[in-house]
Structures are given as structure tokens and as C-alpha cells.
């Protein structure tokens, strides 16, 4: 009933098409056209792609992006799941804890990073100040300004900021699990740990997959926090792909090479987004 015939050529245009049409136009102009433009920019000079293969800094940035993504994802998942189970097991105050734990994720990322710059400063930051007060020697704790500790410090900020995201999604997943299988396992005499591994985790798996993909996709493009915290330094210790592309395009005005590099990032994102689309449709 909803399919009408377009009179001119007798071909059928679905009625819903005209409702979707304006959005398609906007997205063609603001996503697809820029994408093709980037292809053109990167192909203007063949050397853009050969240069990629021998660019040491790009390689370093790529490796560091992967390390950061995997490390942050693993820690945020473990902590998020632990917190979700913990808060779920509390008899009262659950809403309070849940709300308070979400705050870091809601802040503008720039503001969160500014707060951490205040905290990390080796000389007058509150972190070293508090540790000194507790009797620790902080002279070697340089956090984001030390070459060896900068990447770990950036990861720590991301863990602080985004564990709440994993926590929130996994919490919702836990609450949606039906109670019957858990009861049945309990009646059968299974211990808490067995129930968690054999019943809860499998039932939670779709939510886990979705949460990891969503977070992972954002991690590979990380920019804001690092831009504020370290600008990629000291040296190249916290350089990531997004930051390097930014610098190439907007400090050195090499748009073609920046576009070529951005396709590597796009390829990495596609790995995530294909899985994500599947996970979202499965729900």
C-alpha cells in the first residue's frame, strides 16, 4: 500500500524515499564528497603512498596508536566489568554510585585533559604533591613529561575518562539478563564464580562485543586528550596517527600526504565498523 508508482517512467520509487532524501543529500555533501576529495588529494602525487611505507614517524605513530588502543581497551573492559558486577551486587545506593561514576565520561574531553595536566605536573601537580605527603620519593615520577612514562600516563587518563562508558553499557547488559538461568544454576549448586563464567558472561557477550567495538573505534582516532596533554611528545613518545595527520596537514600544509595517511586510519576503522554494524543489527 505504501509503494506508489512514479507516473513519469512507470518505475517504482518507494514512498519513504522522499522522507529520507534530504538526509541523504546532506550526508553526500558532508561525508561522501569529502571522502572522494581526499582520494583525489592523495592521488595527486603517487609518492604520497610510497612515502608512507618508509616513513619512520608514521610507523611509530601507528604502533603507538595500536598499543594505546589495546592497552586502554583491555584495562577499561576489565575495570568496567568489575565495577558493573560490583555495583549490581549492592543492595542500596545503586543509582547514586552509577550516576557518580559516569561523570568523567560526560565532561568535554578538553576539560578532562586540562584537569589532568594540572594533576600530572611533576613539580607542583597535586598527584606528586599528595604522594610526597604520603612519604614517597617523587623525583623520578615525571608522568606525561617523561619519555618513558608519557604513553602510560595518557592511557591512564583515557582509562579514567572512559571506563565509565564500558561500565554503563555492561551494567545495562547485566540488568537485561533474565534471572531464570541464574536461579537454575544456583539450584544446581553452582558456585558464584562458575555461574559468572558459565551463565552470566555468555549471556552478556552481545553487549560486550558491542561495547568493545564502540570504544575501540573511538580509541584508534584518539586526538583531543593527547593534543592537550602532550601534543604527541615528549619527542614522539605519544604521537598517534590522528595527531600526525593533523600536524602534516595543518602545520606543514601537506594535504595530499595527510589524506593518504588518513586512509590507513580509515581502513583500521572499517575493521571495527563492519563488526559493529553486524553487532547492532543482531540486537
Amino acid at each position, binding site marked *: 500500500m505504501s509503494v506508489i508508482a512514479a507516473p513519469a517512467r512507470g518505475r517504482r520509487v518507494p514512498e519513504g524515499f522522499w*522522507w*529520507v532524501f534530504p538526509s*541523504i543529500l546532506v550526508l553526500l555533501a558532508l*561525508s561522501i564528497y569529502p571522502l572522494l576529495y581526499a582520494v583525489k588529494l592523495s592521488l595527486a602525487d603517487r609518492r604520497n603512498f610510497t612515502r608512507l611505507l618508509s616513513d619512520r614517524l608514521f610507523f611509530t605513530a601507528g604502533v603507538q596508536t595500536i598499543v594505546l588502543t589495546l592497552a586502554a581497551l583491555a584495562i577499561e573492559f576489565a575495570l568496567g566489568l568489575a565495577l558493573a558486577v560490583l555495583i549490581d551486587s549492592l543492595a542500596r545506593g545503586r543509582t547514586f554510585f552509577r550516576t557518580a*561514576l559516569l561523570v*568523567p565520561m560526560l565532561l*568535554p574531553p578538553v576539560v578532562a585533559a586540562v584537569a589532568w595536566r594540572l594533576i600530572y605536573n611533576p613539580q607542583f601537580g597535586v598527584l606528586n604533591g599528595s604522594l610526597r605527603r604520603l612519604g614517597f620519593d617523587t623525583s623520578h615520577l615525571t608522568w606525561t613529561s617523561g619519555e618513558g612514562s608519557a604513553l602510560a600516563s595518557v592511557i591512564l587518563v583515557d582509562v*579514567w575518562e572512559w571506563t565509565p562508558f564500558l561500565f554503563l553499557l555492561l551494567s545495562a547488559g547485566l540488568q537485561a539478563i533474565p534471572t531464570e538461568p541464574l536461579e537454575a544454576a544456583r539450584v544446581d549448586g553452582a558456585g558464584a564464580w562458575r555461574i559468572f563464567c558459565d551463565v552470566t558472561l555468555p549471556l552478556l557477550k552481545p553487549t560486550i562485543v558491542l561495547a568493545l567495538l564502540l570504544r575501540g573505534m573511538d580509541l584508534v582516532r584518539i586526538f583531543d586528550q593527547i593534543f592537550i596533554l602532550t601534543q604527541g611528545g615528549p619527542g614522539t613518545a605519544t604521537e598517534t596517527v590522528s595527531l600526525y595527520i593533523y600536524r602534516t596537514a595543518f602545520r606543514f600544509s601537506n594535504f595530499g600526504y595527510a589524506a593518504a595517511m588518513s586512509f590507513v586510519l580509515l581502513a583500521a576503522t572499517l575493521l571495527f565498523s563492519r563488526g559493529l*554494524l553486524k553487532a*547492532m543489527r543482531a540486537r
Partner: protein
Amino acid sequence: MKIFRYGAAVIAVVIALAPVYWLVTISLKREVDQFAYPPQWIGFTTTLAHYREAFAGGSFAAYFENSVFLAAISTVAALLAGVPAAYGLARFEWPRKWDERIGDWILSTRMLPPIVTIVPLFLMLREARLLNSLSGLAIVYTGFNLPFVVWMMRGFFEEVPREIEEAAMLDGESRMGALLRIVLPLVKPGLAATAVFCLVVAWNEFLFALILTETDAAMTLPVGIASHVTQYEIQWGVMSAAGVVAMIPVLIFAAAAQKYLVRGLSLGAVKG
């Protein structure tokens, strides 16, 4: 055992909130106290001087206005284009699963890393003489939020039984009339939540704003704050004050849309 669990939960909350609290204290402290040793968590002399300096004398008032304007205009634009699209995908018969294909395509544009499209968008806006203008940034934000609106609203529309609007249409309502007078009022909470998410995304956004604006006329609050961090001598008080002001609207909005937080953050996938 029970005490242990509550203890762990309290520690987690303290860790989550301490950095935010510290930022607030810095914004309220006199300069001599900001980096005093031992760190002063409570009982310091408070002053509003940094807030005054940032917003009464400084340029942050302009950044704040820019941010408000941008968030509002891009949210309205994204809703105007996205709500009909969501309705179209949710309600009409589509041959050969075209609704799913279009929906997936729309969502996949949201998954593009901003750094991929930013170079061409920068060049396009430069050509159109829209760099350093709020309109240029508003257009980009609209495109960024549109896929989100379509996915969120499609989910909300699908939850409204078709019979309701079919009955209205039998009573003589047009399709548009049924949407405006019957369906939209039913999904009002979802619509409000979707709008809140768009507002927050535009408010928090940094990368596009950083690259597409350079002057006070179009700079947003996050870019204004960032440009103060990278300066040689950082005015921590002013910056913290601006940061505190930047986070307040987000926290208020999040509290208002709390019921839909999970749904929005998962792009509509987890109904929460």
C-alpha cells in the same frame, strides 16, 4: 564482605570525582594557593576572580556564546533533516531491504574518523569562504549529528504501534498530520533525549572546531580553553574557571536525559 563491597564502590567514586573536584578548587583558589604544598583540598580562601577575569573581562564570554549558538543551530538542523528520514525508514515498505541498506550507510558515515574528512572539509570551507565562521562549523556539526538522529529516532518510531497513526489517517489525517499531531507527541521523551545528545556532542567537539576556527568570532569554548593551555605561560585559574563553566551544561543535560544515556551512547543499539 558487604562493607568491603561498599568500600570498593566508594573508592571508585572518589577516583572518578577527585580530578573534577580538584579542577573546581583550582578555579576558586587565589594564585598563591593553587600549587601550594601540601595540596589544599579543603579550607582554602575562595575567590571568584578567575571567573570574572575569564568571562567579564576576557574572551571566554564570546566563546561561550559561540558554543551555545553552534550547539543549538546544528541540533535543530540535524533534527529537521533527520526526524523525517527516521520516520521514512521506520514506517514505509521498502523493496529489497533498502531501508536496512540506507540505514547502514547512514550509520557508516558517522563512523568515519573526523581526521579523514577534516582535510577536504577544511579546503571546501576555505573555498566557500566559510572558514572562521559559525555557519561553516554549524554545517559540519549538522552532518556529524545527522546519522545519530536518524538511528535514535528510527528506534523510537518503531516502538510506536502502527495502528495508532493508521487509525488517525482513516479519520482523515494526512501522513504528515499523523506524524506531527499523533506520533511526535508520543515520542517526545525520545526526541528530547536525541536533541540533548546532539547538543552535548556539538558542545564537547574539539577537532573540527580547532581546525575550522582561528578567530574569537567563531572560536568555541573547548578551543578557547585549549589555546590557553598551549601558551607559554598558562593562566591556570582562568582556564579552570572556563573548564568548570564548560562542563556544567553537559552535566545538567546528562542528568535530564539520564534514562536514555545508555541508548544514546550505544547509538541506539542497547535499549537500556
